């Protein structure tokens, strides 16, 4: 087995024992990227030189016996939505093509403090809006299991680079399923932490009350390893929560002595693919064989999740994306075009409208329009306020459920990876991709996606576990129990 096929945890042990150096490991990944990236397109930028320099620095520290961080020498790929000082950060948008942040996201600082090696920036749907990574302004990303298919989104690059062995660890963000859905479609593990568990400072906002940063990796223990570094309170993020961070990687291998899992009937209604349903039900059976108790639970408002989400998220986005107006940074329309164009608008308004129409892609514009409409006079109560109320009902469903069960078990998606272009002209069909994932964001709870099978045509199938706020430790331990009993997570696509 080559070094890049090993898990991050295994690689870390080899780095510590001195069997490999960080430069060797980093070079091995760069070689792999060189080899398969043309077919996958997981990265927006590979930062080879910086990565090797960083790796050499970690090796030097290790040699001289200096203290090392928790991820010392391990390469990490970062979704191109996390601001990194003096390094371009585009958010998958033409709008930020030339944007170079003068500051670091808190998680980037944490990675640096942990002596991780940043490999590069992964591709994504523009401003994290999408479920297929086809909305990237730069190029699409192919699913490593079938390059005619999408990898999911919006963290499509983050998931694809893991399953194609182009990075051992990656960072994604999840607003309505953007970590869990691509993790499921690419056959890797992805965790959406509890809202407030990981600082959002420096995460380019899509929908602030829903966005969370989370780890992706090949295995649950690797996810635990990275999560331990990411989690924690940050005084720069008012919505980050000051509760202690458990040592996830230390406890992940302890099986839970008792585990009650809830199954939501609505998850298996019309629309779910038979192969997915079978794989998820098989996973439930696996948990039963591991001693878990299975309970049927009601989530009466689960079916309203998409409608609620597609009001709240666009409303927040319409405001969050107002700053991209060509005035202070980012794209500005060509001044030559700012001449009088027959409208009665002043030059400033013309600049705004042209800049934003040229700088944003169609999906981003659609969501800005939806959000602007839903917040506008006369519609606020019917849409936005109504959605906030239903959001509470969804949260209450979760509270009731977690009164009865430890975790909720179910599918991540209704179907395996779909073909490129299949849903690009039908926004509503694309939105329904998030059916099983959005409610966790609305309620703020934690959710994890892990491989639980493959379709006959060889596409990965994901299993979702959701736990009450700040129960990531239990969630990871339960997920690890499944991986101890199965080998789906060890399978890799042929590339």
């Amino acid at each position, binding site marked *: 087995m080559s070094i890049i096929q090993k898990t991050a945890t295994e690689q870390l042990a080899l780095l510590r024992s001195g069997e490999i150096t960080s430069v060797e490991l980093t070079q091995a990944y760069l070689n792999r990227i060189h080899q398969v990236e043309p077919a996958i397109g997981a990265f927006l930028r590979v930062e080879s030189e910086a990565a090797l320099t960083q790796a050499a620095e970690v090796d030097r520290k290790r040699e001289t016996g200096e203290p090392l961080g928790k991820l010392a020498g391990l390469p990490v790929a970062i979704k191109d939505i*996390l*601001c990194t000082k003096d390094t371009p*950060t585009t*958010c998958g948008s033409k709008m*930020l093509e030339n*944007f170079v*942040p*003068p*500051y670091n*996201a808190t998680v980037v600082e944490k990675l640096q403090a942990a002596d991780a090696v940043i490999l590069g920036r992964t591709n994504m749907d523009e401003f994290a809006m999408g479920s297929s990574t086809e909305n990237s302004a730069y190029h699409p990303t192919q699913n490593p299991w079938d390059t005619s298919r999408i990898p999911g989104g919006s963290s499509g690059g983050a998931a694809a680079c893991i399953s194609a062995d182009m990075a051992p660890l990656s960072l994604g963000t999840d607003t309505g399923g953007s970590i869990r859905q691509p993790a499921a479609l690419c056959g890797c593990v992805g965790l959406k932490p509890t809202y407030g568990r990981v600082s*959002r*400072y*420096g*995460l*380019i*906002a899509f*929908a*602030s*009350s829903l966005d969370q940063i989370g780890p992706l990796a090949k295995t649950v223990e690797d996810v635990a390893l990275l999560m331990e570094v990411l989690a924690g309170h940050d*005084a*720069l*993020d*008012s*919505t980050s929560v000051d509760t202690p961070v458990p040592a996830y990687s230390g406890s992940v291998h302890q099986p839970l002595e008792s585990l009650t899992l809830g199954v939501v009937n609505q998850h298996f209604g019309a629309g779910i693919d038979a192969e997915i349903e079978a794989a998820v039900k098989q996973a439930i059976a696996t948990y039963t064989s591991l001693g878990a108790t299975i309970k049927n639970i009601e989530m009466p408002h689960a079916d309203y999740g998409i409608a609620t989400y597609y009001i709240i998220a666009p*409303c*927040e986005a*319409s*405001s969050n*994306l*107002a*700053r991209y*107006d060509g*005035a*202070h*940074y980012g794209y500005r329309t060509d001044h030559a075009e700012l001449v009088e164009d027959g409208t*009665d*608008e*002043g*030059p*400033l*308004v013309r600049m*705004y409208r042209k800049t934003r129409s040229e700088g944003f892609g169609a999906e981003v514009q659609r969501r800005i329009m939806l959000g*602007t409409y839903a*917040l*506008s*006079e006369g519609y*606020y109560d019917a849409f*936005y306020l109504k959605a906030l109320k239903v959001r509470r009902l969804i949260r209450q469903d979760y509270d009731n459920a977690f009164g009865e069960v430890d975790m909720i078990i179910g599918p991540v998606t209704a179907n395996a990876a779909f073909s490129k272009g299949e849903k690009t002209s039908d926004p509503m069909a694309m939105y329904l991709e998030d059916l099983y994932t959005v409610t966790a964001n609305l309620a703020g709870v934690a959710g994890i996606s892990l491989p639980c099978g493959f379709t006959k045509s060889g596409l990965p199938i994901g299993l979702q576990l959701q736990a009450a706020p700040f129960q990531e430790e239990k969630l990871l331990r339960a997920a690890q129990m499944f991986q101890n009993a199965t080998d789906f997570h060890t399978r890799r696509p042929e590339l």
Partner: protein
Amino acid sequence: MSDAPYEIVIGLEVHVQLKTNTKLFCRCSTMFGSPPNTQTCPVCLGMPGALPVMNKKAYFLGMKTALALHCGIPKFTKWDRKNYFYPDLPKGYQTSQFDLPMSEEGYLDIQSTKDEFEPRRVRIIRAHLEEDAGKSIHDEVAGKGDSRIDLNRTGTPLLEIVSYPDMRSAAEAKVYMQELRLLLTYLEVSDCNMQEGSLRCDANVNLHIPTENGVIATPIVEIKNMNSFRSVERGINYEAKRQYDVWQETGKILGELPKQTRGWDDSAQVTRAQREKEESADYRYFPCPDLVPVVVTDEQIEEVRSGIGELPSGLRQRLESDFGLSTYTSDVIVNQGRALVDYFLELAATCGDHKLAGNWIQGEVLRILNDQEISIDEFKLTPSQMAELLRLVQAGDLDSSKAKDVFTAMLESGQSAADVVEDLGIERVDEGALEDLCRMLIERNQRVVDDVKGGNEKAVGALIGQAKKENPNVNPGQVRQICLDIIKNI
């Protein structure tokens, strides 16, 4: 005013920059006058990914002000986004408070020192926190060339104090602003510098006009850019006349026209319609997801309340009732600010004669402060030095004109009152010698004696003049009294 064929109805929205070191949502400096774009960071620049964190001091300064305005403080308050595009607003929204402001329902009492109107209680609708915008500098020729944007001011904490439309004249509006500024100065919550924009005022104005068919109201106009007390008064009076003329011309009343915004042009002394925006304002307020609500306890509110200290209205009453000052004198002293009040209190306590202390401060001391354009902190004489002077006056050693000479000399030389008196050769005249002098003058001036006996006591003034020629140190009051006594006994 009262003879105008209409009543003016005025409500004011006052923006106060709170005196914090740092901005409302980031820790950049709020200092005025720095080079452009040197007090900004990712947060106040609205950079992608940057997040706001509320300034604790700004919240508590806001609460202190609201309490001093007798507002109620809700236990729960939250932040909302007001969405609109403008280049001095880099996030594309202003973080403000919409439906759950940090304070509600208070009042400010105003009265005129010049009897321009009856004392009035102006009710406050709310005082809420919000962030200031940056500055846009437009080219002289509108539409030609670029506008320049300085974001130093962006994010400076503002308290917006919104009154009910309770004022009925421009003079009331001006006094409301002055009284509010005084209150804010006492509270030490703001620099209140109107030139630097740390105190700004917008007025909502319309008219109630009695007609044969009852009272009609004209459409409401919001006046902006009134950057001095004088312009508040002039802007409103101009606008009232303009609205009356327009009503006479068009007959349009409230509800028939949308609310208009007009800017006060101080150089031309007119209000001008501001260009209508491309669309009607729709700010799409919604709760800011990046900021969490603030929850306070009764204990915290009481702690702030107990730190407020004495306010102008209470001090005025105390100076009148406890110190026997006239309404006018106490107004004059209190309106100069807390430092002068403290000066008075110390002087009154040291010299013992409260009225004398009040009169001297209201008169001579303030004259010097105004002439030299200095504050009481820069005034040369300490209250104890002043007290020494006033004690000489009390003892009758100095008449008022001599005392003023001594006062002037003290300011110039920095010497004590006693030293100045000695230097100037002012000596107390022995009572026996003074009586001898008076008798001599009376003998010389039979005419004065006749006049006084005839009922004209003022005639004795002639003797005072002569006495001063004989001995410059005589106290005119004493001379007058002694002469009168002698004449009566003749």
